[in-house]
């Protein structure tokens, strides 16, 4: 799906009311590799290699894929925590990719991020109040009392006891820490939050707490999420639409029900079948698609379709030409020659 135009119309759960909050077009993020005697650039890790998608106001877009496929990079590039190599990112009508640093700083409150590792994303030497209040320090000139008021408000919102305001992160459990991270993200009333695997580091029994919290907050504040995860079941639970990434590109993007029930891309199929079902009786019956081999290196992706090295349904054409993204069903996009074939044939 290199160099293809963006999907003309993105699938929309409620076409009449929602508007596009985020529009990403052909986003590329290449990390240069240097080498040789003079340290010239000799290549690049193509962590994200041309992805396009929209996120509508109030919805949750799930992004799934294997480790290293570029999910985090994509999420960070969307918030311009990385300087994207190419592509445009429009959030709430402004092209983020070209803003000056100062202008970008002004727009930061509208877009926030929740991180994967609740331990690593909190400065161990700041108190909870300090951490949650940091965005306020940066973007408001409120007095202490007002800030504190807001901090307490946020702590209430994420279900943290106000008494904890002066403690340090190490005195909290993982779930609580993640709540602190969420409170920080909420501090400036953002519209859009990128959640980068917010539950991956948490224990199963805690994961549900955090996901529920995110859902509640979405309802309460009308937030829009980009929810990155590799836990397919959890994505199914929380997302409205899901994009499946493989080696820096989106191979399939569809409304959640559609995707899980009728996956159109062989990779999505394999991914879904690989998830173990917590049901002994169901498991025995199922024919699991086991992919052979490992994900190729993003610095040296295979020619043609990125997935051709592991695809169980690989065809000759896949090794030659990268497939285009097509709307195979209404609102359901896939990039696979199986469908190109169908279409040209039919």
């Amino acid at each position: 799906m290199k160099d293809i135009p963006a999907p003309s119309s993105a699938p929309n759960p409620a076409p009449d009311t929602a508007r596009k909050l985020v529009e990403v077009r052909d986003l590329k993020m290449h990390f240069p590799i240097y080498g040789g005697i003079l340290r010239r650039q000799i290549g690049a890790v193509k962590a994200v290699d041309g992805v396009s998608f929209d996120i509508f106001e109030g919805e949750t877009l799930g992004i799934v894929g294997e480790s290293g496929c570029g999910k985090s990079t994509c999420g960070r590039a969307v918030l311009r925590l990385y300087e994207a190599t190419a592509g445009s990112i429009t959030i709430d009508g402004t092209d983020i990719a070209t803003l000056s640093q100062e202008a970008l700083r002004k727009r930061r409150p509208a877009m926030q991020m929740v991180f994967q590792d609740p331990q690593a994303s909190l400065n161990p030497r700041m108190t909870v109040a300090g951490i949650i209040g940091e965005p306020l320090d940066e973007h408001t000139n409120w007095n202490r009392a007002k800030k504190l008021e807001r901090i307490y408000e946020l702590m209430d919102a994420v279900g943290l006891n106000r008494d904890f305001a002066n403690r340090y992160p190490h005195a909290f459990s993982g779930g609580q820490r993640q709540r602190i991270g969420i409170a920080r993200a909420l501090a400036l009333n953002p519209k859009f939050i990128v959640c980068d695997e917010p539950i991956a580091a948490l224990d199963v029994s805690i994961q549900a707490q955090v996901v529920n919290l995110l859902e509640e907050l979405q309802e309460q504040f009308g937030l829009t999420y980009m929810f990155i995860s590799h836990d397919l079941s959890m994505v199914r639970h929380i997302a409205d639409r899901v994009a499946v990434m493989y080696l820096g590109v989106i191979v399939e993007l569809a409304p959640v029900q559609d995707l899980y029930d009728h996956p159109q891309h062989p990779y999505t199929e394999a991914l879904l079948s690989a998830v173990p079902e917590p049901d002994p009786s169901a498991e025995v019956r199922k024919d699991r698609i086991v992919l052979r081999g490992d994900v190729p290196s993003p610095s040296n992706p295979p020619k043609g379709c990125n997935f051709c090295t592991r695809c169980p349904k690989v065809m000759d054409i896949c090794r030659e030409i990268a497939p285009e993204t097509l709307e195979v069903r209404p609102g359901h996009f896939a990039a696979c020659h199986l469908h190109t074939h169908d279409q040209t044939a039919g």
Partner: protein
Amino acid sequence: MTDIATARPPRNQWWDVWDQFKTHKGALVGMIVFLFIVFFCFVGPYIWPYSATYIDIRSRNQGFSFAHPMGTDQLGRDIFARMMKGGQVSLAVGIVAMVLSVFLGTMIGVLAGYFRRVDGLLMRLTDLFLALPLLPLLLVMSMLFRQPLASIFGVETGIFLLIVTAIAVTSWMRTARVVRGDVLALKEREYVLAARSIGTPPRRLILRHILPNVLSPVMVSATLMLATAIITESALSFLGMGFPPDFPTWGRLVADGIDYMQQYPSRAMLPGIFISLTVLSVNYIGDGLRDALDPRIRGR
């Protein structure tokens, strides 16, 4: 995540550090010894009746006595008082040189680690300083700037400044490297990213998120530096490149006392022991601090 301590009262980080520090016996003893030495050198002179420079020619070369607990030297000056005075200089040199060197090292390390653009340049600079043969450089520097500085600031201050900067300028590299390494890692930590996503500008980001977290390697190299600075100063004095002979420092006292090693062994031994004791105690403090500042060891 098995996190205990939901009911622990809020308290400062440093209390935890202190708690862990206390459990390190060596460090605790080191701390007490070091404080004692500092007290001896800086408060002692106010209590002790003799001045370090007062010559009582009639009571030359005396042994230990009540009036002169460490005896007197060849001019009848009270060695006890000279030890205090010498300690002041040695400690001051050690501390100031340490602060300077750690400051330089941290600053360069942070800049190099944080700003990719200057990284190459600063690291080449660090390599360059690492490749400079230190002692010759130190000697040449002390020879070179001794007089100009002495004439601007006066002999004592001039040489003090000289030695302190010489030591600092030739010893910041290790700190810089360690700090840079840490900053490179810290920069990728999610809380730094989080701060950036909030829109925190680099200056505040460094001050608020990076610096406090490189504190522990910095503290450790600081204690090591303090020890090396004291030794370097005394080595310089021993080689005749440090403070002038009429200006007592522990290093000078050792150097002067070595000739008398046979008649009055204590004259070289006492300052020698004080130097070792200081260095030793500072090293133990450093050890304890390293443990206490390491969250893995400190535990949560």
